[in-house]
């Protein structure tokens, strides 16, 4: 890590600067909203990054729960594959897709999730999946906060309101609340098996997400309000800048996660070594 990290850090910094330049200068000026719209290039990639991180947290949590039980492990494998298959098929069968998503992006997401699950299974030991879950939760919450802050910052000058209970923003808020409660559980737990409890909570959170989405979506159809970020198709030049920014954010998120992961790993190693020392040294009879 000592060699790779600074190099990647520099590359990421360069990429981020380039992405910023693209967002502020190169990207075309939006017709109705003007330059304020450029915050979109921070808002959306942060959201996608946060969702990716939370997805990884969910997969890692599931892994942590099922790996000690071989039977549950096998069942989980099949469920993951089935979900991936269903998503891919559903992307071409369900018309029209909500939020004007492209079938190809839905399929990519489905396949990516299946792929990530098995990658985590292969390369992370049981303890390491827990560290991965913790890391992605923390960094995910940070990116989610960025989404929730940039949302109102964008909304205010453009639509005159700070907040709107639109589907995406509200779902993001609930996701943020769930993961903050996850982090609080991790911090406040006195159990020796905090990772298990946290993993259970993460699974509950993940089960909740589609329900949150549908409930707010239906709520919105009953009580329509302006949608921040708009739906509809996007100018290809804007899409290009958006994707560059997302790539830059992903690299940045990866670096932050990597260093947090290493930090946690080292911390646990220190604790284990200290525990081992305490085990070996003779204890005094007077306590």
């Amino acid at each position: 890590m000592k060699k790779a990290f600074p190099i990647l850090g520099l590359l990421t910094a360069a990429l981020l600067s380039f992405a910023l330049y693209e967002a502020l200068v190169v990207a075309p000026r939006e017709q109705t909203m003007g330059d304020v719209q450029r915050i979109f290039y921070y808002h959306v990639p942060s959201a996608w990054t946060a969702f990716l991180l939370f997805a990884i947290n969910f997969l890692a949590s599931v892994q942590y729960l099922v790996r000690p039980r071989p039977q549950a492990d096998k069942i989980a494998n099949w469920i993951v594959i089935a979900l991936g298959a269903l998503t891919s098929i559903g992307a071409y069968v369900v018309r029209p897709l909500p939020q004007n998503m492209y079938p190809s992006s839905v399929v990519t997401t489905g396949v990516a999730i299946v792929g990530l699950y098995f990658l985590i299974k292969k390369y992370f030991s049981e303890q390491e999946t827990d560290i991965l879950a913790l890391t992605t939760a923390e960094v995910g919450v940070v990116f989610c906060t960025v989404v929730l802050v940039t949302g109102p910052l964008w909304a205010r000058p453009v639509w005159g309101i700070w907040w709107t209970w639109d589907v995406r923003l509200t779902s993001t808020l609930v996701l943020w609340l769930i993961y903050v409660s996850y982090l609080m559980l991790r911090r406040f737990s006195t159990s020796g098996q905090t990772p298990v409890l946290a993993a259970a909570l993460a699974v509950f959170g993940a089960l909740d997400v589609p329900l949150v989405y549908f409930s707010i979506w239906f709520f919105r159809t009953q009580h329509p309000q302006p949608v921040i970020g708009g739906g509809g198709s996007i100018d290809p030049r804007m899409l290009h800048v958006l994707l560059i920014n997302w790539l830059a954010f992903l690299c940045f998120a990866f670096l932050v996660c990597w260093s947090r992961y290493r930090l946690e790993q080292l911390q646990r190693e220190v604790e284990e070594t200290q525990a081992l020392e305490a085990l070996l040294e003779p204890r005094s009879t007077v306590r």
Partner: protein
Amino acid sequence: MNDPNTARAQADPIITVTNLIKQFGRFAALRGVTASFEAGRLYGVLGENGAGKTTLLRVLAGLVRPTRGTVAILGKGDPREACREFGYMAHPSLLYDEMSGMENVRYFARLYGIQNDARCAQSITAVGLDPELGRPVGQYSQGMRQRMSLARALLHDPKILLLDEPFSNVDIRSAREMVKLLAHMRDQGKTVFVVTHQASLLDGAADQFVWMQAGEIINRTPDRKYMETA
């Protein structure tokens, strides 16, 4: 000590622990305990506070998972699989204060699949209490409460008894009666572990004293003549 035990001395170990380690953070409650215990004996587990006696019992009961090491109870690697074969008792009463003794025992019997009121009454009488007593357990004296807790631990006729400080704050008469009962159980072939600070109560009843210190078993003696040196 007692002659029946010479035959039992050749018995297979009923509990075996190997290199049992339990750490709570940096505190090592058990540091590599390796021992086997034979059936049909009464073991007194002695030691100072923090020696690991309670932790050892809780590991045997399956309430605490060891950090490292193995436990084998009646050949089963996970204490929870052998849960029908042991009864557990601790310093807190493990009873509901607002219910009477019989109601408590009846409920816990249900957890073991026992729906027979007569058996519940039997285990209450065995500890010298009255099954008809309608007073809620919260109003019992400590001696009565500990005896009722013992009744609860005994009701499913377990092969092993794990008792953590059963005589704590109990009047001397009740304590002596409990010891007599435990010795009687041992004579019937049960294995009894008693963690206690009042080791003198076990004189004449215990087959072996297990001395623990700083998370390890430092000695096992047939009587209390052994005293660890400071």
